[in-house]
């Protein structure tokens, strides 16, 4: 028996032990049992790591007697994809998931050795309940260390679509995001069980939530960039069920990141925040169910399997238990909700929550509607991109608008004078851009609105930085860069948040540019023939063919002319992988400030020497990557540890002092 297989069984036993002993220790208030459970988690982490290392050893040493290695790699697969094959197949990805979960659980335990001792037994128990579920799948349903009766000469290789450098980044990011959502969930459950419903669990998980959100964002973005560069249909988001599965928890998690601030400030929305945390966790499991069950046909069909029923059962149990807990604690959770004005940041955040949840519902509904339709009417229907675009565009634009409005409204109450002062320049910016776009000939309604709102939001962000820095400059005599840096350092979450918003604006620009102004041409040409796409002229020169041990390649050479000047040569490829025999596309992209020229080699007829070429101009698509980078930068600012001591929440301060501690502007 492989050491990895033994390690998984031991990990399962340790997980189950930690689960039972933590609950028992928590109930009986016996710290020795609780500690024992925590030590079991640390040991479990060690054993899952051993199992993962053993599977990696099998992959790297080309041990084709292992079924998993034979199925997802080959002797010619490059090393980095061989490592990535760890999450390329089902059993491996479940093991990878379990390893991430046990690693995070171990970190949580080490972080909380001397704090949150009341919460910890149930935190450990919740995390171990999830871990035992995954470990059970690995022990009983899909063991990763199955040996074959014979040793094949070579493996079947990794799916060619997955042989891309994004493969090394997209799944791990998404898994880190998915699994990361378990941590706030575990603390929420612990708070519900123990009745410690103050904001301790929220403060403890703040950075974990941000961590999970960050990786969910990256996972989605990497997926989009992968689709764009590899699938070769000119777009990056197809509203595929599995894409939707990753988007839904991101939407609810983003809603939570905003509404939790109201709880921290005013001790309100305690039930609502619980709901959001639970919902986010359930959606990560639902996403995995969609991916694994194949209940809805998807481009990610390589991940489908018979695991669906297990996930749906786990989902049902998790949903029932967590919502039952919530109902049980409802009387204690009810807080005196008071807001001073409808024109306040609190109110704006709540509208933001409504829109985020509305979008999550729209995506959920659209994804499941084919199943519902088949169940109710017995008729198969398709809910494709046109549906999702039509439903989500107005909601997305509303969100963009709120992203600008929120920061302009003061907490508690916005005075009329502050409204006038705060809205003036952003509105001027928005209107100016709208007028400029109209004069420039843009007639696309949504695009006009989107550009105008983007300008509005950017202006609010610039104004916030500028005013804050100016106040410091005048009051403390600091130079501009110092003032900006110190202002940001004083409230990292707020200013990091603004930078994240800036990244989101860039992503909106990319979405608007590509959905409203994309130009595309499909031509069949012979060598020496040219065609035009946008302001480019493309001359088809020749086809080049070569072969490697792994695949056969054919590239079309296209000379790119801009204003009659040869500026580039693009070589889109058609590849034919040998194992498994499968064609694949390698697009060629000329990235330019403002737009991409994106060329796909559709097909080649050697008899007539004609090539079918698809060429696209994707305006502003580069902002997708820039937006992603800005988002990373903003999240790092927001998550960076604050040097000063914890600030007393406003609601605590206001409870302590009888009056007058609130700023009104």
């Amino acid at each position, binding site marked *: 028996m492989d050491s990895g297989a033994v390690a998984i069984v031991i990990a399962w036993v340790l997980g189950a032990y930690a689960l039972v002993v933590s609950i028992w220790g928590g109930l009986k208030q016996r710290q020795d049992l609780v500690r024992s459970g925590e030590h079991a988690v640390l040991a479990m982490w060690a054993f899952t790591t051993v199992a993962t290392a053993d599977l990696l050893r099998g992959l790297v040493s080309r041990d084709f007697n292992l079924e998993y290695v034979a199925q997802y790699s080959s002797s010619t697969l490059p090393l980095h994809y061989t490592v990535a094959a760890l999450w390329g197949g089902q059993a491996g990805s479940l093991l990878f998931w379990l390893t991430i979960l046990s690693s995070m659980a171990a970190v949580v335990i080490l972080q909380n050795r001397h704090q949150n001792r009341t919460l910890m037994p149930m935190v450990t128990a919740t995390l171990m309940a999830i871990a035992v579920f995954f470990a059970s799948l690995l022990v009983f349903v899909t063991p990763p260390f199955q040996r074959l009766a014979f040793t094949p000469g070579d493996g079947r290789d990794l799916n060619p679509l997955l042989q891309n450098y994004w493969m090394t980044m997209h799944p791990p990011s998404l898994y880190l995001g998915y699994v990361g959502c378990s941590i706030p969930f575990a603390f929420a459950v612990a708070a519900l069980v123990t009745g410690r419903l103050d904001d301790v669990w929220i403060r403890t998980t703040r950075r974990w939530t941000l961590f999970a959100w960050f990786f969910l964002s990256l996972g989605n973005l990497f997926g989009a960039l992968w689709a764009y560069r590899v699938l070769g249909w000119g777009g990056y988001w197809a509203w595929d069920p599995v894409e939707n599965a990753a988007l839904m928890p991101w939407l609810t998690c983003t809603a939570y990141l905003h509404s939790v601030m109201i709880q921290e400030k005013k001790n309100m929305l305690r039930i609502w925040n619980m709901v959001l945390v639970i919902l986010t966790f359930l959606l990560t499991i639902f996403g995995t169910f969609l991916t694994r069950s194949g209940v809805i046909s998807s*481009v990610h*069909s390589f991940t489908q399997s018979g695991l669906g029923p297990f996930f749906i059962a786990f989902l049902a149990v998790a949903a029932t238990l967590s919502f039952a807990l919530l109902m049980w604690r409802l009387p204690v959770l009810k807080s005196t909700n008071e*807001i001073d004005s409808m024109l306040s940041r609190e109110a704006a955040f709540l509208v933001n929550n409504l829109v985020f949840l*509305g979008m999550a519902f729209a995506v959920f509904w659209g994804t499941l509607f084919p199943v519902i339709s088949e169940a109710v009417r017995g008729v198969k229907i398709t809910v*494709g991109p*046109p549906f999702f675009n039509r439903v989500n565009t107005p909601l997305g634009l509303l969100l963009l608008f709120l992203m600008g409005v929120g920061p302009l409204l003061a907490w508690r109450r916005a005075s009329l004078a502050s409204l006038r002062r705060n809205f003036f320049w952003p509105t001027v910016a928005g209107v100016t851009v709208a007028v400029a776009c109209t004069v420039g000939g843009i007639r696309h309604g949504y695009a006009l609105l989107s550009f105008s709102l983007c300008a509005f939001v950017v202006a609010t962000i610039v104004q916030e930085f500028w005013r804050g820095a100016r106040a410091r400059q005048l009051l403390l005599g600091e130079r501009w860069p110092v003032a900006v840096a110190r202002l940001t350092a004083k409230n990292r979450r707020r200013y990091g948040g603004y930078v994240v918003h800036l990244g989101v604006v860039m992503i909106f620009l990319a979405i608007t540019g590509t959905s409203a102004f994309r130009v595309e041409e499909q031509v069949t040409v012979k060598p020496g023939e040219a065609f035009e796409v946008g302001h480019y002229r493309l001359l088809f020169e020749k086809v080049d063919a070569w072969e490697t041990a792994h695949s056969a390649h054919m590239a079309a050479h296209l000379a790119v002319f801009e204003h009659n000047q040869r500026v580039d040569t693009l070589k889109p490829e058609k590849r034919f992988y040998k194992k498994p025999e499968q064609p694949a596309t390698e697009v060629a992209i000329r990235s330019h400030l403002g737009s991409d020229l994106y060329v796909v080699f559709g097909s080649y007829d050697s008899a007539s020497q004609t090539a079918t070429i698809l060429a696209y101009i994707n305006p502003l698509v580069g902002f997708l990557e820039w937006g992603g980078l800005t988002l990373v930068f903003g999240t790092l600012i927001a998550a960076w540890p604050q040097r000063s001591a914890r600030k007393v929440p406003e609601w605590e301060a206001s409870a302590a002092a009888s009056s007058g501690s609130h700023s009104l502007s």
Partner: protein
Amino acid sequence: MAGTVPHGIRETRRLFLVLVVGALLGLAPASRAQTQHGVTFQELEESLTCQCGCGLTVHSCNHVDCSSALPLRKEIREQMALGKTKKEILSYFEAKYGEKILSSPTTRGFNLLAWVAPFFVVAVGGVFLVWTLRRWTRAGNPIPVNSRPDRSGCPNLAEDERLQRELERFED
């Protein structure tokens, strides 16, 4: 003053509402250059789903020699040549291949639910939110907007205090 809403704020609220509603309803989707029959080839391609399993629309499927997208494109061209309207062409495809060929649900019967439900949920959520916020606002103890002491008589002090307040606002 406490408890009453100044006229200016009411106006701003109205402006806010108009902006929100405008953002939601104001703008129709893009109009593309259309043929004399009122429909473009791309529009039809995007209205139909490729049946090869790629999950994309006929327009987006780029599989080499796709056994579904290529014949469907040919068929779209044939139907367009007959001078049919978009509705007639889509009905033809629906009758021939079943409803699953359409890339989004129809707006008839049970399928209407697909379109209406998301907006219905947001609308009901919105009504509930406004109702809740009103309740919470009433429960609140609004602080009069202009309750700060007036120090306009001593400009430097007032200016310093304003800056200090502003800084607090930005650092809070």
